[in-house]
């Protein structure tokens, strides 16, 4: 055998061996158990740390906020829909409390969008007091009321 061929055969064998070796390490253990996916996929997801506590958990300690929320038009929302995941704080209140991160995050749900049901309350962000934070006029937990905090209250109180 000429050396060109033997060298290339060795090289090819080495590459193929590396491929199968890599497969040995990189193919997830439960792959193909039931089908073309990881058999453990559900278990792996179930084992992820829990990040949301749920509205009932928040309400245990924050009765006032929960009651207020339950009376206003945001009654259908979960606390963490606005506040963000709070399981760590619910477990141990000394942990930083989840706070809505952006002053205009309300637009995530209320920005005018053709695909939303027409009855859903929506505003054009550019026309609806673009220079102010939403919470200056709407109390987040009861959005048709003005915030109690007078310093936040703006010249334009909300009706009702």
């Amino acid at each position, binding site marked *: 055998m*000429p*050396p*060109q*061929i033997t*060298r*290339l055969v060795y*090289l090819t064998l080495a*590459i193929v061996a590396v*491929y199968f070796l*890599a*497969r040995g390490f*990189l*193919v997830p253990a439960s*792959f*193909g158990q039931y089908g*073309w996916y990881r058999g453990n996929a559900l278990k792996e997801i179930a084992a992820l740390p829990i990040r949301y506590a749920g509205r009932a958990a928040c309400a245990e300690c924050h009765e006032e906020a929960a009651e207020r929320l339950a009376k206003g038009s945001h009654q259908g929302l979960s606390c963490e829909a606005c506040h963000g995941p709070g399981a760590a704080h619910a477990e141990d209140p000394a942990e930083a409390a989840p706070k809505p991160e952006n002053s205009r995050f309300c637009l995530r749900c209320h920005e*005018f*969008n*053709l695909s939303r049901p*027409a009855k859903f309350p*929506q505003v*054009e962000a550019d026309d609806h007091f673009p220079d102010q934070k939403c919470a200056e006029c709407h109390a987040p937990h009861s959005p048709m009321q003005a915030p109690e905090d007078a310093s936040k209250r703006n010249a334009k109180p909300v009706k009702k």
Partner: protein
Amino acid sequence: MPPELRESLLEALQHVQGYIYPNDVSLGWSVVIVVYPYITGLVAGAFILASLVRVFHVKALEPTYRLSLLTALAFLIVAPLPLLVHLGHPERCYEVMMTPHATSPMAIFGFVYAWYLMAVLLLELWFDYRRSFVEWAKASAGFKRLLYRVLTLGVEDVSPAAIQLDEKLGRFITVIGIPSAFLLHGYVGFIFGSVKANPWWGTVLMPIIFIFSAMVSGIALLMFLYLVISRLRRVPVDMGCLRAIGTFLLSALVLDAAVETLDWIHRLYEAEESLEVLVLLASGKLFFSFFLVQVLLGTIAPLAMLGATQVFKERISLRLQKSLYLVSSLLILIGVFAMRWNVVIGGQLFSKSLRGFTTYKIALVGQEGLLMAVVLMILPFLLLIGLVKFFDPWNTRETPPATT
């Protein structure tokens, strides 16, 4: 109707025409997916030009043989990048190779690609360059010496018998390589052609159209590179070589134009229910990129120019011939890009309802923006400069290429 509703409706109506399904409004495959078949086509075309020397003994093309192979390599290395950019999560790309699904053409691409890169292109380059590697290793020092020595894979025999064997094996590889090049690019056409829900794509002619347009674009690229590089190196252009490339380019272009025309004749005569929307598409949304760029500038104009260089060979000056070749190669490169655009973007502009159109607005920045496409198109040329520096395609003497 509330004024806001009216306004948003008007805005949406500017964006779409006719009756369109909601999931047809925005395009899933953007400009980077236009770049992808364009680049693989250039690879296949450049390789086929090289194989003309090896297998069909077209001596006149020898000055571009190694350049063609290096060009194919540079573009092949970049070819998967548009896919990685488009899919995101490049850190997961190995997974498709680890657990490939045999019935998924997209999953098999990894193997088609690996086969073409390792079993065809690198092997052919190795057999051709091995002797040069041995000689360059002897004549250089330091890192370059090490590089060339490693690349010989330890086979340092340069006796006439060994060189002859290299030649023979190289030819053998090329013979395998031609169908492989067809496979690589025919496969890209297959992915589009097998989408039976999309009448613009789903035709059995698609792989063939892709292969011919690949040959056209690859040969045009080599013609362009050869002219530009000769100018940069300040060496005279080998007119025999240029004419030979021109002849092949003309033949490939004629074949390509014929197949694509055949496709249209077939569609027009079949007149399926999708025809109406396709004609509207070609004459409306794609008027500029299809009729003007692809057909007129990218096919008819170069056909006329290349034809002129054949017919009036004796009567027009060499200078004019060179300019005609340069301009027609550029036009063809642009035209084939337009063809990829028309296939990829055009196929997503009309709704599956066959009753309406959407618009594609190309982003400037971002993962799938214009800038990204430009970077992806420049990258193979930068790679090629590096490859040409280290593996000087014209230097078959014993001095290693000067890379400073």
